[in-house]
């Protein structure tokens, strides 16, 4: 987390420094850009949400706790206005996207498998508690349509593609029983301190795509506030990953502010 805050501060400081140092040049550039219908902005925000199967499968009986973690996003983008009134535009962005969640859920007959250090696999149906910690860092390229409702308000929507830089998806199971290797197998009870951890980090899909839509409000001349919903449309896990019997989609709300040059 610290890493990101430092990066964020560094980037902001640097960009402000650049601004003052190169006021004259910059102005020239910005004027040129404005004449060609181009806007630049830099945005920072947090992602709140989770990866979930849709609709929630009947295996999930209750969600007992949820915490989003502090998942920071940083984005630089360029918008080209295509009509004469500068109402319609297209944005191309580059975003560092962190998506996290910590959940505790109660499940019934949840298909799962755990691997040990020599690759031995215990699989079966789990009934009981499941704690999940997921933390994924993506490089995301959104391509968005813009529509300005007013000078202060604009709506954006469009697809995005993401590449996973690093990700973890792990957790443990507790208070319940495993029926292994299948529904007719033997029962192993987990109570009290007996827990078993799992780690599916290596089964995360590198590519992710989806759609996002949201709005942006210009609070001051250079300061914008935005909120966007990003909705993943492919499973976060690889195709051949069968331990979790259903696809999980990352759905996150991004809230933040930006600097419009």
């Amino acid at each position, binding site marked *: 987390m610290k890493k990101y805050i430092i990066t964020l501060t560094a980037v902001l400081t640097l960009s402000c420094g650049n601004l003052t140092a190169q006021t004259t040049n910059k102005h020239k550039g910005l004027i040129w850009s404005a004449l060609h219908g181009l806007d630049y902005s830099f945005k920072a925000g947090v992602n709140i949400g989770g990866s979930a199967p849709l609709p929630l499968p*009947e295996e999930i009986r209750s969600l007992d706790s*949820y915490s989003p973690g502090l998942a920071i996003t940083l984005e630089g983008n360029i918008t080209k206005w295509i009509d004469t009134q500068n109402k319609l535009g297209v944005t191309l962005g580059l975003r560092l996207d962190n998506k996290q969640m910590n959940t505790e859920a109660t499940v019934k*007959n949840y298909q799962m498998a755990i691997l040990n250090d020599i690759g*031995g696999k215990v699989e079966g149906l789990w009934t009981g508690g499941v704690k999940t910690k997921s933390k994924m860092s993506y490089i995301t390229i959104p391509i968005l349509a813009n529509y300005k409702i007013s000078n202060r308000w604009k709506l954006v929507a469009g697809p995005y593609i993401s590449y996973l830089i690093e990700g973890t998806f792990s957790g443990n199971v507790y208070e319940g029983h495993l029926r292994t290797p299948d529904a007719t197998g033997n029962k192993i009870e987990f109570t009290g301190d007996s827990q*078993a951890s799992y780690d599916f980090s290596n089964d995360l899909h590198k590519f992710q795509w989806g759609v996002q839509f949201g709005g942006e409000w210009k609070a001051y001349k250079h300061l914008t506030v935005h909120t966007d919903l990003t909705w993943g449309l492919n499973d976060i896990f690889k195709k051949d990953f069968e331990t979790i019997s259903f696809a999980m989609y990352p759905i996150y709300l991004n809230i933040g502010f930006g600097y419009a040059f």
Partner: protein
Amino acid sequence: MKLSKVLTGTLIGLCISGCIQNEAPNVEAAIDSCKGKGIQLTHINHAKKDITLYVSKYNDIKKQEILFTLSENATIEADIKDTKDTPPYYNFKDYSITNLEQEKYQRGFTVTSESQTIQAQYKINLLTAELPLKYTFDHLAQTSPFHILYDEGNLRNNEAIQWTSGNEGYENCRMAKTAEMYPTIQADNGKRGKCVRLETKSTGSFGKVVHMPIAAGNLFIGAFDAVQALSKPRKATQFGFPFTQVPERLTGYYKFQAGKQMTDQNNQAMAGKDKCDIYAIMYEAEKFDFFLDGDNSLTDASIVLKARIKPEDIKESEEWEFFDLPFEPQNNKAVNSKDLAEGKYKLAIVFSSSVDGAYFKGAVGSTLWIDEVEIICKP
């Protein structure tokens, strides 16, 4: 920002909770345990769906009570509809598969899940048996995925018993790719014929997270309750079988080699040298379903007689060493001949490659070979 986060979190939480679907009927279909009047010991082979019930010879097996513990909301039915069945009482008398001299009865049962989508077919074997007095470790009842040994004495006296080990628990850690990699196996080069080899093994990453980093090789008369293997591992090893004679000595041959490094339940190195354990106990068991287990098999007040190798007498040797252990009275108790005749005592024989293996302390590599064991009784 903080408030909005909390709000959004709550909203997402509410939304997801709101989307929770109706509970589906359970898909599990399995027998987790069998009890019942006159059942002395239950061996459940979950992989083969084969259950052996050792019953008292005084039982009326035309009406054998079997109380099944099934997976939640599952149902069970005998495959052959028999008008003499009045569950939980089942007629086994007419289903004899008697082989050699040992009387054996077998019926098929089908368990159906609550969802009606999954069925499991079990064979339930019923037999009466007496504990043999001599054990050669020459016979295998199962070779895969792990060895199960059995011994038979004089079959005219119905002397036969299947040995039990913690192999079924070890299976859960998925460290063994072949039967020979399990802690308890039948081995060549016995004192005579084959012998049994018990070896303390690592349980790998699974074992470490549950504070069971090692599994001692063990072999005993009794049952292993796989359900409790992880939550209460010492309760999972249930020792003993009814015995109607007064044992005097436990004799046999062993070879022992201690592993290099002792470790504790957290896999931390410990000082000291590993020892094996060889013992037998006779204890009072008013009811057949009373068992001593890994927690109390050496200390319980019901113990009447105990024969155990002394730690200082254990030799590390490449050659077979003879042991001759007298049964000594415990808890100021004596064997009551009336109770003895009524089968109210149980005898347990236990071997382990690490004496504190039940507490997950021991040295990986400690190996105990055992052969030609005999219970010598008072004439």
